[in-house]
């Protein structure tokens, strides 16, 4: 079966909630979704939640997939939006608890002891707003697209990306 046909068939089966198709999609894109979510959220546990949401929601969401671009690109976009939604949810909840209890420790980034710091490890240490822009840039979005997604100006996106790069270079000694 040609690759395009195979993709169409996979999408059709996933839309009808065929578990084998969902498993196949997970095999193809699970790592990508997890990677994007982990970079943007800086937490393995939160990233797992995103992976779960994305793959549970795919059967319904695939109804909007027109097949014009690659399925991987579409899944990445949906992942990014899901993460942004997750962050809003988290921020709102933190704000709520903060008002009631003062300081709140929410789910922390998993502590690591590392001999060697990778770029991904260093990214998890960035402030959230820099980390998000960094990840989106790495996913190939232009600053004006990032700006639209985050509701900021393109120059703010540029500035955050620059600061992220600067911090990473310092930490990683680039």
């Amino acid at each position: 079966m040609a690759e395009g046909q195979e993709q169409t068939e996979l999408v059709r089966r996933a839309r009808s909630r065929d578990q084998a198709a969902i498993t196949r999609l997970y095999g193809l894109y699970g790592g990508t979704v997890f990677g994007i979510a982990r970079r943007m959220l800086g937490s393995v546990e939160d990233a797992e939640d995103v992976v779960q949401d994305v793959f549970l929601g795919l059967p319904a969401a695939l109804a909007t997939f027109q097949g014009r671009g690659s399925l991987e690109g579409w899944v990445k976009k949906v992942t990014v939006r899901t993460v942004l939604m997750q962050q809003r949810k988290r921020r709102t909840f933190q704000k709520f608890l903060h008002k009631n209890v003062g300081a709140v420790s929410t789910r922390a980034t998993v502590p690591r002891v590392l001999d060697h710091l990778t770029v991904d490890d260093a990214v998890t240490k960035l402030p959230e707003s820099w980390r998000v822009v960094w990840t989106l840039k790495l996913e190939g979005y232009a600053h004006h697209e990032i700006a639209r997604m985050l509701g900021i100006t393109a120059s703010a996106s540029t500035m955050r990306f620059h600061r992220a790069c600067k911090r990473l270079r310092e930490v990683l000694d680039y």
Partner: protein
Amino acid sequence: MVFHPRGSRLTEYAVGELSDQHTGRIKRHLARCARCRRTVSAVRKLLHDGADQPDAVPPPALLNRILQAAESGWDVILPVADPPVRLGSARAFAWLTVVLVGVASVVATTLWVSELRADRSELLFAEPHLLPGREVAVTYRGTSLFHDEDRLVLRARYRTVDDEPYNRAGRHVMAGELRRVGRGAFEGTARLPDEAVYAVFTVEDAAGRVVDSNRQTFWELLLQEGKHPAFEALLQRINDHSGRSWQVAYETTQLMTALYPDNPNSWAHRVAFERFVYPDGLTDSLQAVYRARFDELDRRWNPQEHLPAHVLAGMFSFASTLEGRGSAHAEKWKRRLLKEAPRNAVAIGYAVLDVRNWEDPEQYFVDLDELWARVGPHRTIAMVAYLVAVRTEDYAQLIRWADRFEAMDPFDGLQIAIRLSTFSASRESGIRRLRHQLRLLDEDAEATRPLGRTVNWHRQQIDARRREILSALGQALLMTGDQEAGLLALELAVQNTWNVLAFGALASARLAVGDTLGAADVTAAVVVDPTTPPAVRDSLTHVALDLVDQPSWTAMLRAARASMYAHVLESAVAIRVPSGVRVYDLRGQRRSWRDLVTGRVTVVGTVFRYGSALGRVMRVHEALTRAFGNQVQMIGLSADARSAVDGASPFQLDAPFPVVENPSGELREVLNWWGIPSFFVLDATGVVRFARSSDGDVLRQVATLLALEDQSIVADNPAGAEQP
């Protein structure tokens, strides 16, 4: 002096996002500046290395979790379009949680076809009915839910002819093993005990961590009699669906009357169900049919001597449900039942009523003892005597009958232990029983795991039960003066939970050992809980302010409130009710569900014509009004079906809140609610945030939603303010 471009410009250049106008100048600068060239190449290398990171690997167990959630009908609505970037408070909730919609459906099936097909998996038995004590070949065609498994377990809950309604302490067995025989297919054999007449099945992995419960409807087998399910199997099917689905139970009574029209119990069950779901008058046209059937059976059985107990009990029950307990027919069959079949369960129930004597409790116990000796040990006698002892505070009788009651029904052991531990005369016995209950928790937990539930789910239930026991034990130990042990038990009981009673006892215990700060701290939890009556709240506040100063107390209240909210939010869900859901008031007028439930926090309470559910809803409504005024509203959702005869609403309820019904049943499906009296708490946008809540939980959940909505939360610009 050399002027270097700004760092951000170099970064923009490095990623190819600089305008043509600036690009030329940067290029010219880079041609002569090694330092800036290093910056650009470092940014490019960083991006390259970042993109080149090995693919992260999600934990292997995650896929199973996802497939299991998908299997049980969980759905998530993903943001396939860019979300709006700034949200007002009313809309903030919309982004708070990904929408999870639990979807369940009852699979309609012809009863005597043994396999009930789920959308994606099926369980097939070589023999399409239950063959107790014999091995039967089984095939399971699963999905990728068990893609890593080579061996699965077929678990069953079975019922015998004597089992009672509800599934409080089901008989669970591992009915067989299934081995993988091909892609997604498993085969094996199943065997059920000799005494089984009805059984329901699930398929799970060997560790019990992943369960295919056919969307909580299970697969079922019924004992066959000739070409049809046996009467006893149908009866146990009704009992098994008690608390699960009265609709299925009612349909089974209809089948009973079709298959066993000569058995008076068939009609007694059917008429009882119709009395339950329809009000007087609505089934009048059916009454003539039932009466003719009763007269026919009465003519047939009345002249005969030595009738079987089940016929006597059936005729009495049929007459009682059709004509009332005091009717001439009911009295006639009751006399025969009590005389000719005194050990029959229905007979015992009425014999217990006959010896009722509140004027002379001592004589009451003598009569109950005599009945116990005459008809033999029976749960009803033990339970009634135990409750009489509680009410009359006769502790000697209490301990004596508690032993008999527990022997008849070990499932009630914990409640008996808690009850005994509260009275000083029976406290030692209560404490001993509570410790025994603690030990039981760790013994054979698998036998008590409900069918369709995972081992992890069950472990959480056991932990909650352990905390309940520790709370009662701690309070009892304090009453005996054992401060140290009592304090320890209570400290353990309140870990990771919200238990107002335990908090109150712990406050006293901490105070007794001089821990004033700790006492005030836990008192704050009692004070902020909305179920605490205002007078108690005031007096506790006075006590606390003797222990700590006002600023500390204010901080403690704030922390307690946040802790309560956090505990409450742990059980939050997000179920969106479709806007087109059709609801009608009890006059039959169509109402807009959206209009009914938006604008304010809403509690939906399910109301029934019979039983205690209506009283509960009224009480919760009063408590809500007292605690929150008009910030919250109550809506009654009628659980009664419309009349099959004229389509009229089952009853006219004079309630101080709107009552609606949803005859087409969408709400039942969306809420995954099948008739158990329940509360659902909705936020001001109409999204269900808490499902199937208990009375006390409702108040805490409403308090949490109101607090949350009171924050005027504006979900920030997702990127937040510019970092300093």
